[in-house]
């Protein structure tokens, strides 16, 4: 299994832990990942809020690099995954956009590179039986609220990732790892995304709603696959506690960190020390049940 891997800008900064755990999990499961040389930013929310052609050209610069590698593109950041797939869709369905991109990039790109989310590769290419066979530890009944957010599931017509209102991909992984995936109502609610710095008040309000429901469902932790969701839910607990007098201490971990733990990979290699709300309770529960 060989893929072009697009890490995305966050992978070098606030989502370094996502990147570390992605690479470690891929190695353990025999997934070969190759970074396209000179990959650049997908433009994210700022791109599509500013200019349509910019929002398509920035991802296209990377997609055309991957086309030269003759591989499918794998992305773990939900935001980058979203922009790549939307760019492909825009280019394939609008000849004028394709022409505009050709002028911006000085090369033609037809929108045909296959873009996959890492979760899709894990479930469809590696498969749950093979993953289960590789596990060294179990999540030991850990109660996990799987949180998908927006960018992994919307727009559903373009992304075609799971059920947009009640996705189960992350839940299936959690169950396979011996965890208890929770039925809770905020799977695809929005965390406030890119408003973290501009309208912190909005983000605090939205993240509190999500944390409240996760706790009401009895979650030991929240599992995510998007750097913006991770940062907002993890970082803002301190603000919420200060503003409301509550005491949220819910670890917000990447699904790849949980999977890495169960594959027997060390916590250092999985970037656990980078979490703002420590995941010590999660680690204790999992490590107490080592198969080794």
């Amino acid at each position, binding site marked *: 299994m060989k893929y072009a891997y697009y890490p995305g*800008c966050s992978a*070098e*900064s*606030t989502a*370094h*832990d996502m990147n570390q755990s992605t690479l470690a999990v891929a190695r353990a499961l025999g997934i070969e990942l190759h970074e396209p*040389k*000179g*990959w*650049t*930013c997908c*433009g*994210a*929310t*700022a*791109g*599509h*809020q*500013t*200019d*349509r*052609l*910019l929002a398509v*050209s*920035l991802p296209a*610069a990377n997609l055309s*690099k991957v086309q030269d590698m003759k591989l499918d593109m794998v992305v773990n950041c939900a935001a980058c995954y979203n922009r790549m797939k939307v760019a492909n869709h825009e280019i394939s369905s609008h000849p004028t956009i394709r022409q*505009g991109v050709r*002028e*911006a*990039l*000085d090369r033609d790109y037809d929108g045909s590179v296959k873009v996959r989310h890492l979760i899709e590769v894990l479930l469809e290419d590696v498969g749950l039986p093979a993953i289960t066979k590789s596990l060294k530890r179990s999540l030991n009944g850990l109660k996990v609220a799987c949180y998908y957010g*927006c960018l992994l*599931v*919307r*727009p*559903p017509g373009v992304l075609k990732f799971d059920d*947009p209102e009640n996705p189960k991909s992350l839940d299936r992984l959690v169950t396979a790892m011996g965890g208890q995936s929770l039925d809770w109502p905020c799977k*695809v*609610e*929005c965390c*406030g*995304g*890119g*408003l973290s*710095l*501009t*309208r*912190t*008040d*909005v983000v605090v*309000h*939205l993240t509190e709603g999500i944390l409240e429901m996760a706790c009401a469902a009895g979650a030991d932790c929240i599992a995510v696959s998007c750097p913006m969701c991770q940062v907002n839910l993890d*970082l803002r607990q*301190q603000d919420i506690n200060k503003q409301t007098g509550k005491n949220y201490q819910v670890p917000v971990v990447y699904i790849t960190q949980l999977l890495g733990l169960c594959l027997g990979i060390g916590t250092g290699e999985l970037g656990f*020390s*980078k*979490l*703002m709300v420590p995941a010590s309770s999660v680690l204790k529960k999992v490590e107490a049940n080592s198969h080794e």
Partner: protein
Amino acid sequence: MITIKKNTTSRALKDAVELLSGVDLSVCFQCKKCSSGCPVAKLARTRPSEIMRRLHLGAGNELLASDLVWMCVSCETCSARCPMGIDVAAVMDALRRLALERGAPKPEGNVPLFNRAFLKTVETFGRSYEIGMITAYKLGTGKLMNDTEKFPAMLKKGKIALLPPRGGDRKTVKRIFRKIKESKGAKA
């Protein structure tokens, strides 16, 4: 009740939104599903269904000053749930682009400044540079020390990178930004 003033910019705004978003505003029948699912509607003074209705009734540039235009988080719940398949999120994107073009007043939180700061780091380094973007944004808003108490802990944990990114194909990205500016100049 929605009251609107007819003015000279009205047709131009509806037409411009339809052209930029590819949406046919006339198929909206005001079921308000977009507003029900909108995570920020209860915090904003305007709701997405109201934006749709005002546009359809011929609102002018004053609509670009609605707080929802820049409070919208682009979560796309509205588009995913619209029974008529209207891409409401694309309408919001079109309104933001028009707000920038037509010089609408600065919104609370100044999201346009944040977006400029973000894209400037992309144009410079080929990849976004969080600390550079945050600094530029905070300098621009004049609230440099606002919401910074977590920075020391984040730096210590390595949760945010101190140095600018390297290794990105800066040449291609600079070309993209240059070409987009040129094509905008040609249209204006």
